[in-house]
Each structure stands twice: as C-alpha cells, then as structure tokens.
C-alpha cells in the first residue's frame, strides 16, 4: 500500500476527488464505472490527473472501460504506457 506507487498515487487522487469512493471505502479492484462513482465528467478529471501526474498523453482510443474500470486497471494502464514509452 505504498503511497508512492502508481496505484497509491491514483488511489489517493480517486479517494480525495470523489467523495463517494471514500464513502464506500473503494478498494483497488472495485468497479468505478457505472456504479455512480466515475461518470463521464469524472473520467475527464481522472485523465487530466493521470496525464499531468505521470507525464503521459492518453489518446482518445485509449479511453476504454477496460483501462478505467478500477484503480488497479488504471495503474496497469499507466505503467504499461510508461514502459512502452521508455522502451520506444
């Protein structure tokens, strides 16, 4: 549960920015979409955070439910992207 990990930083943002996530004590694998926690505007906020926090650019075609379903899937998406960018 290190706060410095990708997961930790995303978790910190989600729990602080979306009161319902804190209220429901959302865990890393809990669904965020279509449960009322993240809606279309919430996703915009998350993407803006991820882009500035991790210095990456999220392309439109990467905005898919599989990547933004939970804190854990977001972290995997970010780490995967950073690795690819380093490798490129």
């Amino acid at each position, binding site marked *: 549960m290190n706060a410095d990990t990708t997961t930790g930083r995303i978790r910190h943002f989600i729990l602080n920015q979306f009161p319902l996530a804190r*209220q429901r004590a959302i865990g890393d694998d809990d669904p965020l979409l279509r449960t*009322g926690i993240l809606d279309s505007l919430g*996703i915009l906020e998350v993407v803006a955070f991820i882009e500035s926090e991790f210095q990456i650019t999220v392309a439109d075609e990467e*905005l898919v439910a599989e990547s933004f379903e939970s804190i854990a899937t977001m972290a995997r998406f970010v780490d995967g992207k950073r690795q690819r960018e380093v490798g490129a």
Partner: protein
Amino acid sequence: MDFLIHHMLRSSAARLPEKEALVCGDQRLSYAEVWARVRGLAAGIRRAGIERSDRVGIFLDASVEQSISIFAVSRAECVFVPISGVLLQDQVAHIVRDCRMRCLIVSASKLEIVVPVLSSIPTLERLIVVGGSAPAGTPLPADSYEALCGDVPASDAPEASIEKDLAAILYTSGSTGKPKGVMLSHGQVMAGATIVSTYLEITESERILAVLPFSFDAGMNQIMTAFQRGATIVLKPFVFARELVTALKNERITGLAGVPTLWGLLAQPSSSLSKGTYPHLRYITNTGGVMPQDVLATLRAALPTTKVFLMYGLTEAFRSTYLPPSELDKRPTSMGKAIPDTEILVIDENGRRCGPGEIGELVHRGPTVSMGYWGQPELTARVLRPHPFLPPELGDTERVCYSGDLVKMDEDGFLYFIGRRDNMIKSSGYRISPTEVEEVLFQSGMVQLAAVIGVPDPMLGAIVVAFVVPSEGGSFDPAALQAYCSAKMPPYMLPKTIEVLDHLPKTSSGKVDYPALRRRTGS
C-alpha cells in the same frame, strides 16, 4: 384518433409493425414487439389491482424496460412517475411518498437502495421487479416484469381516460425545499411531441440517439417524438464521449438532443468527434442551459452539415422556445422565439409588457402549460396564473406559466436568457434547490450554519458551492462532510467545494446574505 400517450405507439405499431422502434445495446425491438410488451405489462399492472389514475413509479436506468414501462403505465390508464436512475434512497423515498405511489417498477439492483424505506410508505402496495426477484425480506408483493410482459392479452381492456387526464408527474427542483411533482396531462405531453417534431421536422426515417434521461421533460420528449412519428430511438448510456461518437456512426444517427455539459464533453480537444464525418446526422438540439459560444463553434466546425437548434423549456411549461438554425449566424446567443402554437410574453415587475432590450420574466402560454405541482395548490397558483392581458369578458379561462427566468427580447422579437429570478441552481441540466443541499449539510450534524450557492462553470453551467460554519466542539473534517453528502445526495447535487467560515454574512434583516457569498467567489 390519438389522444392518450400510448395511442401514438399503437398507431405507429399498426402502420409500421416491422419497423425498428427501440434499440439498446444488442436489443433491437420492432414496433410490434414494443406494443406487445406494453400491452402485456399494462394488463399485468391492472391485474395486480392497480387502478386508473394510480401513480406508478419507474425507477430504472435508461433501458428497454424503462421505455416499455412508460407506455404500459399509460395504457393501464395510470400515471407514470419516472425516477432518475441517479437518485439515492432519500430522494426516491420523497417522490414515492409525495405522489402517494401505489406501484413501483424497479430493477433488482435498484430495489436494494429502497427496500429499507418501503415499509414506511403505506400507499405503496406492489412492486414490479425487472431482471431478477425481490430480495428476501422485501415487505411488499412483487411481480416479475418479464413474466407480465410475456403474458400478452388476447384482447385489450376498454379505456375511459381522456386527454385531460393526468399522464405523468415529473419531479423537479425549485429554489427552495424538496423536489415538486410537475403534473402533465396526456394532451400536454402529446402537444409537446407534436410541436417539437414539427419544428425539428422529425419523420419516420429518423434515428434518434437518446442520452438525456427520460425523467425530465426534454429527455422524455425524445421517445415521445420518436414513437409519435414511427422513428427509431437508440438508447445509449455512456461513460466515454467516444462511445457516443461511435454510436453516431454505427447507428447512422440522424438526431441527438443534449445539454451544454454533453456538448462540452464532445467538444473536448481529446474528443474523437472532430476526427469523423457524420453525413447522417441531420440535427442536434441543446436545452437545459446556455451553450457556451466556444463549444458551439467547435460543434459547428465538426458537424458542418448538421443543423443546430438552440432550445429552451422548463418542466412547468414543457417546451417554450427554439432558435431556427437559419438565425444561428446572426444571433448565436439567442434562445430564439416561441415554439409553434405558443406565445411567449416578457413581463416586468409591474405586470407590463417589456419593450425591446428591457429585462423581464418569461411568461409562457400554450397547450404545453402543465397542470401545476402535485398536491401544492398554493405553489401552483404562484407559477400558473391567469392570463394577464385577456379581456375581462373571457373570465379566468386560461393559465399561463410564469417561468422565473429573466430574459430580454431584441427588436426582431428574439429572446436572450439573462438569469434566474430566484436562487435555483442549474448544473449540467439538473435543477438544484440550494435549501435541499443545505438541509443535508445540517443533517450531518457537523455544521451549525450552511449556505449553498451556484457558481458559474464553463462545463457544468454552474457548480454547487457550500459555505459552512462547523459545529462547536470537535474538529471539522471537510472530507468527512463530503463523504457524508455523497451517501445522501446524487452526484449532481454534491457541493464541489466546501468553504469553512467563522460566520455567515447576514443582511440587515438577519437573513443569509447570498449575494455577499457570491461576491466572495467572484461570481
């Protein structure tokens, strides 16, 4: 002759039985299929002992079932009460209690939200559960929606209702208190459908993408216009804006209604809208707030062959004005003129007509003026008043709707929105009563004083901002208050920021000085 809401569907099903009527995900229903399910569910509602004029709630997300339920309740000669799928227990309980609901059509997942309060609402006698069975311990008898829909009667029961009968109650907020139920008759809803499909030129070749919720007037009109004209309606719950863009292409959508927040999403630099072409998309409409000019410009550039209709309406009068696309270049900030068969008056504080450029209240007269607020005759009398300029010989024969919206008219009669006469907040198309949010803040026990205002926001129209004075003794944690609110209110009502003050500014008469709070935020 069509004079009840479901007659529009019945006629379209008779004329175009094989035509695609309703699409949601991978479900595609023809008009004949929709009408059969409506008849089955309607018969089931009546068999369950629900009678003419009884209120039947529909607490479902946008779905085939929600659409079927609206028309089935009409066919059962009952009153449908759509409940927004984003509402939580307290708001749902208020609606169920306020309208003395007898029957609730609800999904198995949403039923869990309301089960704890059901036994405290004596009028509610029956549930119809979609997609599963009622959990053990549910205090009411429950029918299966699917079973009722499948049991289509050989012949239909006779009807006694007429167009003046109450068809729907749409709950909406004002400047104070809890949401009120705006009553709409069959005739008023159908007049709204006829008028809007006339100026939008909706025909049976239309494929309408419905993203606005059916629980508010413009949202409901998406399905009313579609079924009246024999068009196809495609329901599209979405999270990512690109899902809408994909649906526009794949479903060859011809018409899309939105609120400014939706257009703001689609106009984002990251949105894929500008990467495609949409030769099928004949029109888009905006309602529920003023479209920002930069968003409008982006949309017009991305959709060069699509007509843009800027519209205005309030639930109490259903639909009021629209700007013809031909005027968009000349007056892009206008909300247009009266819709067909409707007259809009601009009246000053002394009850006189305003001249060009003078600010006054928008007053609506026409066939879509609602029947008022359910169970609230005094409030109704404040909003629906006698026509001010009729000759006395006509007597008190007509009610017009005083909107509470301040507007002005230009030399050519086009209207411009100025603001609200009261404190009501409008955010992403939702009407929010500041006192309702304040009440929840008080209920938390964490604050001794609270005041809520709307602050302009480019994306949402307005955001909710709360000022609180914490309760004495004990530490105050704004995040804990936010979390409390999120369990009690739907997301659109939540204060975006909570500012802690030592005291609230007061006017000389001792009331909270809301203008002073607005000045603090620079708005």
